[in-house]
């Protein structure tokens, strides 16, 4: 295989399992770069990466930005405070403008599901989805997968729990797809209002009882709970949510000693995860951030036609 034979990274569904493995494998080489004093390589020299964020984000945007810069690309960062509708210019017009300025890669986050898919049908540049609505967040899923691989060596046969607001989570949708592809067994956990039965189509288990599933988990991914969901009566109070679904120190004590605790960030300490747990040796939350840069470098590298890095001693 020579790089990724595709223009865009839109969701995990459209990637082959081989491509998922290839991205994770390549990410390891880029991560090794970070220990050097010079962390930059000239792979994307002369290419232009444009980040277009229609939703506020700090870590994902900075992670892409750093990945592009470490590959020597030119970076434009377009921060759109509000949606295209409010701004007055349509998404398609905004992106045609970027294309006219010869952007090679457009990294987009958007509050509307399928916005990057809509774009990819209408423009030449590569579109990398940095999160669309509730739909997909493929680079997060790839960095989560890579992070588990790094710690456990494989996902085959692992029991992975994803806890929280599954219904409104693009991370959950992309994660469960990626984890299952690599052979893990996934259980979703949260109240029925946030974990509808329809998720069974992903061939995953569903549990409403965190205490019941915790002891059997190799990995637990705690999702951020959006405080505004309470207004829609999806749960009655943050207090009750915390009682039922927060990963507390006491609950961690009843887990396997080698359980990996993950969180896509940003963390609501004291809501879905207690601060002692977030900072415990089981937590790889900060490692996920480091890995995110490496995985995104690997994606740029492979989209640019880069070959698998097995044979390369040094990049």
């Amino acid at each position, binding site marked *: 295989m020579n790089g990724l034979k595709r223009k865009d990274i839109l969701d995990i569904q459209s990637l082959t399992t081989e491509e998922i493995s290839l991205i994770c494998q390549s990410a390891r080489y880029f991560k090794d770069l970070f220990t050097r004093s010079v962390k930059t390589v000239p792979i994307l020299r002369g290419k232009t990466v444009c980040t277009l964020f229609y939703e506020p984000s700090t870590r994902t945007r900075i992670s892409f930005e750093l990945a592009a810069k470490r590959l020597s690309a030119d970076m434009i960062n377009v921060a759109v405070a509000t949606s295209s509708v409010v701004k007055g210019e*349509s*998404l398609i017009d905004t992106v045609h403008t970027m294309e006219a300025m010869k952007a090679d890669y457009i990294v987009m986050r958007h509050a509307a599901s*399928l916005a990057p*898919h809509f774009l990819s049908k209408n423009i030449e540049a590569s579109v990398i989805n940095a999160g669309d609505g509730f739909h997909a967040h493929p680079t997060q899923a790839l960095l989560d997968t890579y992070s588990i691989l790094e710690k456990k060596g494989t996902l085959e046969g692992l029991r992975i729990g994803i806890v929280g607001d599954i219904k409104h989570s693009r991370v959950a949708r992309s994660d469960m797809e990626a984890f299952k592809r690599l052979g893990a067994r996934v259980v979703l956990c949260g109240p029925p209002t946030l974990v509808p039965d*329809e998720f069974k*189509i992903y061939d995953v288990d569903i549990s409403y009882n965190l205490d019941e599933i915790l002891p059997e988990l190799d990995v637990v991914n705690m999702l951020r709970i959006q405080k505004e969901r309470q207004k829609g009566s999806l749960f009655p109070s943050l207090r009750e949510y915390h009682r039922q679904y927060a990963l507390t120190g006491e609950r961690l004590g009843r887990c396997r000693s080698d359980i990996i605790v993950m969180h896509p960030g940003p963390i609501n300490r004291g809501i879905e995860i207690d601060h002692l747990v977030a900072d415990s040796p089981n937590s790889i939350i900060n490692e996920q951030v480091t890995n995110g840069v490496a995985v995104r470098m690997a994606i740029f590298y492979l989209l640019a036609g880069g070959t698998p890095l097995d044979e390369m001693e040094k990049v």
Partner: protein
Amino acid sequence: MAIIIKNGRVVDPASGLDELMDVHITGEIVSRVAPDIPVEPGCDLIDAGGCVVLPGLIDMHVHFREPGSEDKETIIGGSIVAAKGGFTSVCTMPNTTPVIDNQALVRFIKLEAEKGPINVFPIANITKGANGEEITEMGELVKGGAVGFSDDGKPVLSSILMRRALEYARMFDVPIITHSEDTLLSDDGIINEGTTATLLGLKGIPREAEEVMIARDVLLARLTRGRLHIAHVSSGGSIEIIQWAKSRGVQVSCETAPHYFALTDAAVEEHLSMAKMNPPLRTEEDRIAMIEGLRSGVIDVIATDHAPHLLNEKMQELEYAPFGIIGLETAVPLVISVLVKQNGFSLGAAFRPLTINPSNILGLGRGELKAGAVADIAIVNADKKIRIDDSFIISRCKNTPFMGMELYGSVEYTICSGRVVYSAGH
């Protein structure tokens, strides 16, 4: 002026006629339907060999956007599109700007339509300003030419107001046409709640948002003995409720649209906003329920819900794009391809919901093809394939998920009140 239509297969769903016959038109009236009518000198001859000769089609649910959004469509422009689709009568929904809640506006539509090729029957609002608070001057509106009442685009949320509307409209013998949707339950959903919505991360509209409102509306029709017509039914569960109501003698009729028997919500993944309408495309089970509902007659009418939207509105993020697709030019091909060819409907059964049934519901006195009837006629070649593409669609808005499809059923001629108002390259 006389026209003779020769060698066609005349199908009149009202009488059950389905035979090779000639049709003789004198002035605005069908003067004879019989075999081998001799050609008189001076009359126009239409050779309908290999074609089906139907009563002019009736679409009781279109949006012509005038007044207010003439950039999308106009009464005259929409009438030309309708004629091309085989329609000789349409009913315009009143969700224009301003809404059609007074007699002057009803008269404006009638006056404007006189310049166009076909009959336009306005539907006026149930409530003033379509705000769901007070009923309109229904008597004045009927005098002006309104044939029914609807706040289409939104439901009448207040049950007491719906009760009053059904009761009051009884004295005019016109139906209350409902957009049955519990908008609190649909909760800003975008597509059908189900597998596709889950996979694509889109907010779902549960079928129950439609069903609970239909259940309420048929119960209110039972209470009031009023006449209820339910617009754009999309869910199989709704059909069961309507069947229940009909079996108990409630005066209820209903319509579905061709897209509900042709597509499912799976189309959203490929066509994005072009497959976004309200109510949304549902599941295969619902699609089959629409076909069976039409077969059994629980569904009385096929109406297109023709809803033009500009390309720049549809070329947006799915969430922000407006609901609605055009339907006048794809209706006949979909009825022929899906109902007749794929599901074995007779031509009479397939076109009854587009002719005599809507005419009876609205008291239009049209939709029949027999001696003495108004000469509204559609001539269709059911075995000819057409390709839906940019040049086929003459509507100024081309928002349809059927773009690129090849279908059976070509409208060859449309005749309205004895005048040829459309012919396909003849």
